[in-house]
């Protein structure tokens, strides 16, 4: 369970998040909606441990452990994952090699046997199918020469392979056409179960039509100004955000 309490955080001494409270229980999918600059990405970066972000007040715990004290890799090994809004190109690093290294880091952490290349290829082919990705992307460098849509599928492929228990989907719908969006959403939906929880960050309602959230939170100027069920998305679509502003 992810628990965020009175979180104040920002960059360069500037406060961006101004007291976030949020509890995400196993099996739940929460959506955070808001305009650019409302603090959505800051929240994702704080949870995953990106450098240069500072926490001024409050706490973030995952299954009782203080996340803010942990290195990004240790958070990942504890089951936290983020599908990046802008997946990073890593020239010269083979996509398959990278994914297997990441999976083996996790298996090792869990005290399990690491996977050899043959078994891994078996596993990855099955996961590829689920996001309808061409096998040629396995032989390329990580995200190198991938289109926007392919990058997002590659993120979901990583999620399906690493099997995190808490996944952040940061603007996963951006840059996707409707077919790709359906595939990505399907990948996520099939991955949902009672143990796994999700935080979807998005501008638009579109993603949520294919990926049904349990809760929706509206973030304005670093604060959650309204929370509700999935019907809130439709209301926002109709009325915009201004009626919620102070």
């Amino acid at each position: 369970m992810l628990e965020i309490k009175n979180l104040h955080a920002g960059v360069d001494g500037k406060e961006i998040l101004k007291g976030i409270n949020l509890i995400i229980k196993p099996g739940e999918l929460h959506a955070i909606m808001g305009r650019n600059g409302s603090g959505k990405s800051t929240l994702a970066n704080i949870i995953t441990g990106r450098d240069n972000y500072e926490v001024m007040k409050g706490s973030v715990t995952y299954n009782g452990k203080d996340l803010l004290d942990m290195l990004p890799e240790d958070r990942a090994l504890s089951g936290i994952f983020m599908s990046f809004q802008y997946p990073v190109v890593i020239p010269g690093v083979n996509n398959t090699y990278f994914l297997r290294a990441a999976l083996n880091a996790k298996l090792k952490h869990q005290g399990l046997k690491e996977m050899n290349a043959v078994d891994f290829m078996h596993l990855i082919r099955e996961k590829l199918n689920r996001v309808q990705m061409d096998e040629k992307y396995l032989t390329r460098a990580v995200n190198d020469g991938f289109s926007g849509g392919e990058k997002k599928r590659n993120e979901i492929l990583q999620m399906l392979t690493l099997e995190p228990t808490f996944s952040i989907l940061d603007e996963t719908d951006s840059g996707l056409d409707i077919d790709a969006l359906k595939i990505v959403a399907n990948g996520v939906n099939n991955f949902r179960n009672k143990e796994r929880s999700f935080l979807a960050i998005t501008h638009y309602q579109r993603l949520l039509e294919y990926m049904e959230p349990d809760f929706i939170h509206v973030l304005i100027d670093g604060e959650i100004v309204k929370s509700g069920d999935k019907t809130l998305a439709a209301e926002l679509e109709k009325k915009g955000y201004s009626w919620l502003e102070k």
Partner: protein
Amino acid sequence: MSYLNQQFDALLKYWPDEDKNIRTLRTNSFDQFNTIGFPTRRWEEWQFTDFSKFIKKQFRLSWADDLPNIPKSIPGLIPDLNFILIINGHYQSQLSALPDGVRVSTHLEDFNTDENIYTYGSSQNPFQVLNTAMMNSGVPIHIESNQIIEKPIQIIYLMTNLSEPLMNHPRFHYHIGENSQATIVEHYIGLSDQPYFVNSVSHATIGNNASFNHVRIQEETESASHIASTHYQLETDAQLNATHFSWGGELFRHDIQITFNGNGGDATLNGLCLTENHQHHDQHVTVDHQHDGCNSHQLFKYILGDKSSGVFNGKVIVRENTKQTDADQSNKNLLLSPDALMNANPQLEIYSEDVKCAHGSTTGQIDSEALFYMRSRGLTQRKATELIISGFAEEITKSITNENISDYINEKINQWLRSSNNDD
């Protein structure tokens, strides 16, 4: 410089019966060296490399007595290649293995065939004339015409553990006959903690429609000063694929020259330098397009750690009235430490209109976005850093097609990464 005079006299005495013409070549070259002297930082082409410490050192030429017992296992030997073994400057023909169609000759024979090779491009370079004066090792290698030599030939130029500072002036000539294909690995490897000096000159003539793969590995110890000149001359429709690796030596300077002597030549020259501690690697490349329809591609990468420094100076010249030249040159550098330093100077000199040219140079640090991305997948900072660096190197290593050679190189790069990453 007095020790060099002394060494030069000793060399003349050591080979009293040497051919008269070669003797004259040596004496003239040594006079020329004494006129030019060692480079100073006031020389434009040498300004980023400090020879003041090197000049204070003294080295003795390696004699027959300096041949140690042959080590049981030869360091650097790449499995399943033909090889030529030279230990402390002494050619071990009985331990070398060469296939049909390949012949090792003598410098006397080469000199009598084409004496110009010995003075080619040397007028500005004191180390090259010093090599001509003192050349005491290395061999001419001939690939006969119409030969496809499948198995690469590895030259191992080994400096063993020395008891005093030695120097050698190896000289290799590669004659690649018409329509032939061959791969030569020129591999300098050292084991000594004593200072030593390797001053090499290599000259490749690639015949009409011939294809030459050249892998140069500079793997001296950090006590070494390694100075080198390499010339490639491409005849009509000749192809060159050269890849240079260096991670050894305290001081490394390499002047590389590619000249097209006929139309339709195609040259690819890639390089990778790995430096740490106080190492300094300086490479100067000149590509001279003086014929039509020739292509040249260069990519040089440097990975610099600690207080090490690098210099890349690349010049592409396209002469007047040449047609359909395609030339590009790229230099990319990765600084692993705030104290590492890179000087890059890519230059184009174009005197013709019918050209396609591109050049550029970038120097940066490890991409922090990539680092975070990988860490967010559970890889440690160290593992992620290693992957990013080896990914950076991969663009060069992938141009090696022979698997045994690329395995050797990749293993060395990984060793380098593990040891340099351990420091912090």
